[in-house]
């Protein structure tokens, strides 16, 4: 299947559509949130073919959607959103991804960048020492079988109960860091085994812990409510459910693929394997996915504890602890209420490389954020910048309350390695005042800024489309990678 520019219709300046008539099996149109130059770039890989495939999912409503940071994935594109009608619409593990509840959180400090400039190099080394990547080695915590089930059930609450977290953090996490539908008995022994020693580890790939400072504030009132101010030092953490989540996805894609004939479902790509949400296999996956999501929230809370330890070790025991601003998932499925065909309806929203971005008034938000909209954290690449946005009401109208999740890859890992000399990159970043600690030069080259789209353009697109407001811009000073 080839998609030409002439197949794509402009709806608004930042919204494009491939109509339902483009292919017989499409049940809804496919929509792309992008500026025209970004759309042209998106057409370079197979993202739009994958988007069209998603439009054929049973029970899909509204449109299959991609955000401006979209890139080719497997089955679903990364940066995709799809909502299916609850309870009989499809649930597809491929629409969530292998790294269940991969997400990002932002911690704030009460320090200004000028006060800590001379300690940044030491801080980078201390963070690297405290936060293991855990790739084939494991972290500091070893869970017993009972503790594992508690983590899967309670999520971030488990870390708080065991002294690895802060009670106040829970209010500042999407879903309070715990999905109620989690059922540890739906998680395989192999998945649990893989997760036994990975709490508190970041993994590799694009996962990181980063120290930034607030370079610019765009919305004073919202920034103040979020606890952000110009020059302030903050910490970004990006990781997910580690091997446990990967195994939950692998187990269930296999199970669901075998079950599809029973429900008469055929899909154009095996990675789109899906079953009705209310089927036995659908519920098995959903309950296991919720458990893996809880593991991820617990993981990010434990990593925050490690970051807080590093902070005390560098700045002394009297330093005010890092405070959680917000934690958002960007690989998850949730049952939410949205406007569908002119009526409020429950839908199963799949977000794969997309962030929830609910506007003002959303009940779950902490009191101090409720009238302003949900914080949306958009990491850029190391060496560029990241953003804090606030979800706006239009996201509910256009994108099932969703927004982009990052800059989006532009170059393949192979191409990045060919173009980037990692030791030179590390030195160049140091000259710019950015201290990098990475597990390998290979990993560093693969994640170089050149490998990513310009996060500024991606963010401008979501702002101009009205689905979010720009609150603050962050500049990195320390990057820790697996």
């Amino acid at each position, binding site marked *: 299947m080839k998609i030409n520019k002439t197949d794509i219709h402009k709806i608004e300046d930042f919204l494009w559509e491939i109509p339902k008539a483009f292919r017989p099996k499409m049940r809804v149109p496919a929509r792309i949130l992008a500026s025209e130059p970004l759309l042209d770039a998106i057409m370079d*890989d197979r993202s739009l073919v994958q988007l069209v495939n998603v439009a054929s999912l049973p029970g899909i409503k509204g449109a299959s959607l991609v955000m401006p940071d979209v*890139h*080719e*994935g*497997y*089955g679903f594109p*990364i940066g995709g959103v799809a909502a299916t009608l609850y309870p009989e619409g499809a649930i597809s593990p491929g629409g969530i*991804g*292998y*790294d269940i509840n991969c997400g990002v959180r932002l911690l704030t400090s009460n320090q200004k960048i000028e006060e800590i400039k001379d300690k940044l190099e030491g801080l980078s080394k201390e963070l690297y020492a405290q936060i293991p*990547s*855990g*790739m*084939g*080695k*494991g972290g500091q915590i070893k869970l017993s079988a009972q503790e594992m089930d508690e983590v899967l059930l309670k999520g971030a609450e488990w870390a708080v109960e065991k002294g690895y977290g802060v009670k106040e953090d829970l209010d500042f996490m999407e879903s309070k860091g715990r999905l109620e539908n989690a059922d540890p008995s739906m998680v395989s022994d*192999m998945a649990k*085994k*893989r997760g036994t020693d990975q709490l508190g580890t970041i*993994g*590799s*790939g694009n996962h990181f812990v980063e120290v930034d400072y607030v370079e610019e504030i765009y919305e004073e009132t919202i920034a103040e409510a979020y606890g952000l101010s110009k020059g302030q030092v903050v910490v970004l953490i990006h990781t997910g459910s580690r*091997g446990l989540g*990967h*195994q939950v*996805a*692998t187990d269930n*894609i*296999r199970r669901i*693929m*075998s079950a599809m004939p029973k429900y008469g479902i055929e899909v154009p*790509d*095996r*990675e789109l*394997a899906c079953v009705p949400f209310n089927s036995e296999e659908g519920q098995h996956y959903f309950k296991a996915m919720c458990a893996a999501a809880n593991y991820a929230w617990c993981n990010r809370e434990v990593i925050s504890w490690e970051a807080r330890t590093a902070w005390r070790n560098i700045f002394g025991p009297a330093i005010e602890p890092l405070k959680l601003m917000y934690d958002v998932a960007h690989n998850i499925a949730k049952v939410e209420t949205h406007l569908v065909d002119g009526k409020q309806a429950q839908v199963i929203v799949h977000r794969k490389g997309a962030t929830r971005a609910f506007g003002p008034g959303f009940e779950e938000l902490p009191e101090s954020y409720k009238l302003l909209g949900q914080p949306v954290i958009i990491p850029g690449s190391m060496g560029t910048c990241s953003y804090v946005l606030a979800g706006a009401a239009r996201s509910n109208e256009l994108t099932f309350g969703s927004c982009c999740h990052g800059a989006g*890859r*532009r*170059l*393949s*890992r*192979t*191409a990045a390695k060919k173009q980037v000399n990692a030791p030179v990159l590390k030195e160049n970043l140091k000259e710019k005042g950015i201290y990098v600690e990475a*597990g*390998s030069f*290979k*990993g560093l080259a693969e994640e170089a800024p050149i490998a990513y789209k310009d996060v500024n353009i991606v963010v401008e697109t979501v702002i101009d489309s009205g689905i979010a407001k720009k609150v603050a811009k962050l500049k990195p000073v320390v990057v820790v990678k*697996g």
Partner: protein
Amino acid sequence: MKIQYLPHTADIRMKIEGSTLEELFMAGVLGMGNILREGFCDKNGPFVLKSKIELMAQDETCLLIDFLSWVLSTSYSEKAIFCEVVIFELTRKKIRVEIHGKQQAQGFDEEIKAVTYHEADVHKNNNGDWETLIIFDI
């Protein structure tokens, strides 16, 4: 057998070929082991850690992906890299094997999240060899 790593925007695309189905499965294990730690399988023998598995699937493509997924899971649970395969039985829908590897105390270079079904299609090419692409989620 032939193993090639091809460009992919975010993940790793590997093309494997073998003159027999057995060789194709062996190439898959070898190629994946060398992603987990560059060149590990080419120079770190003998591979004394052993694990047995019997799997069934709906066709040879699913069988290969499910098999490699199991090898990957075992790599993580055993903190080891597997490089060799002794095949006792292999049909289009069933495999019974023993994999051989070595524990890796230094950890891995690369974390493969999953072996995906995306683009996988085990078939015979124009030369009469078995081949497929495999996308690893990184």
